């Protein structure tokens, strides 16, 4: 067991930081309003293109797809630095974390040739069509239908709380082709297909992040199906396992905590209450960081990810919560025009326990799989 970065890892982190210093505009921190915002989505296409040219967009991917087979630590160091900088990749972090790898695993050669190169060049945005008005945590109850027709499928239904849909070129869509968990399929759907309507949902988390997406008699050809009919549950579980510690939220949370403490110190307002609360929040960020590292280490060694991934996710939720509570109590001025960066972080921190599977679902998994408590009756 070793808690130190090796020379190669330190050098890679320095490379990423140098890239950020050279490629983020001088006013970046006043522009950074969240991954789904208009400004950040537009910037992501320029930025990710440059990242790709520098070999820093998909280093963990296979050589065939533009990567260099770098290990799991490389991609996580990259993710830490990007998220900590306010995620200049915008919604494209999703592409490199799990959409690309999922296409590599389940896609046909034609699908891979069509969709993976634009991701590897950093010029495309995807959205994830999972949640529906009646299917949130209970994803298996989704209703959007995909009915076979001549040459393909007709899609009818509604998705909701869909991140990045307003700017997305393609939707990774879950739809029903039969009954139950084995009656769900994944479709790769270009968002400019006739019959798709996107509406942004006004939200507390900022502009551009969540949407309703309507599918009204949308025709997709048969080759839009990813994997086999009925394989969606397996594909989605695989994708979500890649996503569970995908975002190193603890890194930005800790950075924002330090920023808030520095502001309080400067204003001579870092009193005893703030000292205690900030220390507890930092400990929670550190716990989340090491938990996440445990999962990265499992991936690096090729060990199947266990219920510790749920614990890592929940530890991150706790950290975001404590940092958020600290800012609200001790730095309310930051949320009232005082600091756009603290504001942007605070807006989106609430997402931690909700997106990619509610925190309570993680607690259920921890109780059953980590603690081995008896299951709840169904």
């Amino acid at each position, binding site marked *: 067991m070793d808690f130190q970065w090796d020379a190669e890892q330190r050098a890679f982190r320095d490379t990423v930081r140098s890239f950020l210093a050279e490629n983020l505009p001088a006013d970046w921190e006043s522009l950074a309003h969240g991954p789904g915002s208009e400004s950040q989505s537009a910037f992501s296409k320029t930025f990710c293109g440059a990242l790709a040219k520098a070999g820093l967009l998909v280093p963990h991917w296979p050589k065939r797809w533009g990567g260099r087979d770098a290990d799991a630590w490389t991609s996580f160091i990259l993710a830490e630095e990007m998220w900590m900088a306010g995620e200049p990749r915008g919604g494209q972090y999703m592409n490199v974390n799990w959409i690309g790898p999922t296409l590599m695993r389940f896609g046909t050669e034609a699908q891979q040739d069509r969709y993976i190169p634009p991701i590897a060049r950093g010029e495309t945005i995807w959205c994830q069509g999972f949640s529906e008005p009646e299917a949130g945590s209970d994803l298996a109850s989704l209703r959007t239908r995909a009915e076979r027709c001549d040459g393909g499928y007709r899609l009818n239904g509604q998705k909701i709380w869909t991140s990045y849909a307003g700017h997305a070129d393609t939707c990774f869509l879950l739809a029903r082709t039969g009954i139950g968990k084995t009656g769900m399929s994944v479709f790769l759907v270009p968002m400019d297909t006739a019959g798709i309507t996107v509406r942004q949902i006004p939200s507390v988390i900022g502009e551009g992040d969540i949407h309703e997406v309507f599918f009204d008699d949308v025709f997709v050809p048969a080759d839009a199906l990813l994997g086999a009919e009925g394989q969606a549950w397996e594909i989605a579980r695989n994708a979500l396992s890649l996503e569970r510690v995908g975002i190193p939220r603890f890194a930005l949370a800790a950075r924002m905590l330090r920023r808030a403490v520095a502001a309080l110190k400067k204003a001579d307002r870092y009193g005893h209450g703030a000292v205690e609360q900030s220390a507890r929040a*930092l400990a929670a960020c550190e716990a989340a960081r090491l938990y996440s590292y445990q999962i990265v280490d499992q991936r690096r060694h090729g060990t199947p990810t266990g219920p*510790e991934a749920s614990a890592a996710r929940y530890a991150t939720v706790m950290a975001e919560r404590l940092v958020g509570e600290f800012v609200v109590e001790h730095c309310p001025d930051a949320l009232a025009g005082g600091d756009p960066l603290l504001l942007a972080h605070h807006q989106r921190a609430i997402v931690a326990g909700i997106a990619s599977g509610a925190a309570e679902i993680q607690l259920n998994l921890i109780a059953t799989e980590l603690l081995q408590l*008896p299951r709840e009756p169904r």
Partner: protein
Amino acid sequence: MDFTLTSDQSALLGALDRLVAPFESKPIDFHGFALVGSDLERELTEGEYFDIAQIPEMGALTAAMAVERLAWLPYTADIALSMLVRPHLPGDWPRPLAVVENGRPGRFVATARTLILIDGDDISLAQVTPDDVEPVDSLFAYPMGRLKRQPKATKLSAEDAATVRKWIRVALANEATGLIQAAIASAVEHLSVRKQFGRPLGAFQALRHRMAECAVLSGGVRWLALQAAATADDGDAALAALHAQDSATRIVYDLHQMLGAMGMTLEHPLHLWTYRLKALMSELGGRGGQSVAVAQHCFA
């Protein structure tokens, strides 16, 4: 960064598993608070386990793993201070060790040969005889003792005092790790077998979620404690001790609640771990004291 055990670490933990096998359960007729492990201590001494931190292939990190493993036992002895703090005392000081903080009763004080005397910012060391100390009855599940008279003490330099304080934090955090894990395992067993309303208590979501939160805290305490042992960084040590005390505060209360009336008895072993944690919660100034240290070292 690598979270896999080295072969030396695996071998040591395997050897410890074999050594502690006779000490894994509480004697049925023991209904007290402090279950002292004199035989355990003798076996650890004979096996030279108290010196593992000084073995280059092992180091403080491996010693921390041993502290964690031994804290699972219902029996207790001065293990953490001897394994993790003693190597950092200036000079050769005999074990067992104990801490007397601002004159208060402390764990193992009545049987220690070396006392670490903390008075405000000052730390002194003293070798003591049985005439210097006496046992104290307490609610804590450690044998507690206090000074009868002030022994002749050697005051440490500020630098040495800071080092000792740091390693006491590391020792505290790693001992708390094992105690918390053992306490959770004990409650999980109860929740798995005790039935109400026709099903095991552990099948009720209200309890499952509280237990899951305890488990997440417990894992975090462990990672921070191991990291602090590995890096020997002042900030890491303060964070580890803070997270241990903070999490223990929450977990101890929840676990007794999980056991219902069984959690009020001395028949069930839960108190052997939780009432040790209660003793650890106040050390080095408790959460407030660790927070000040975190602010000093991490928010400088």
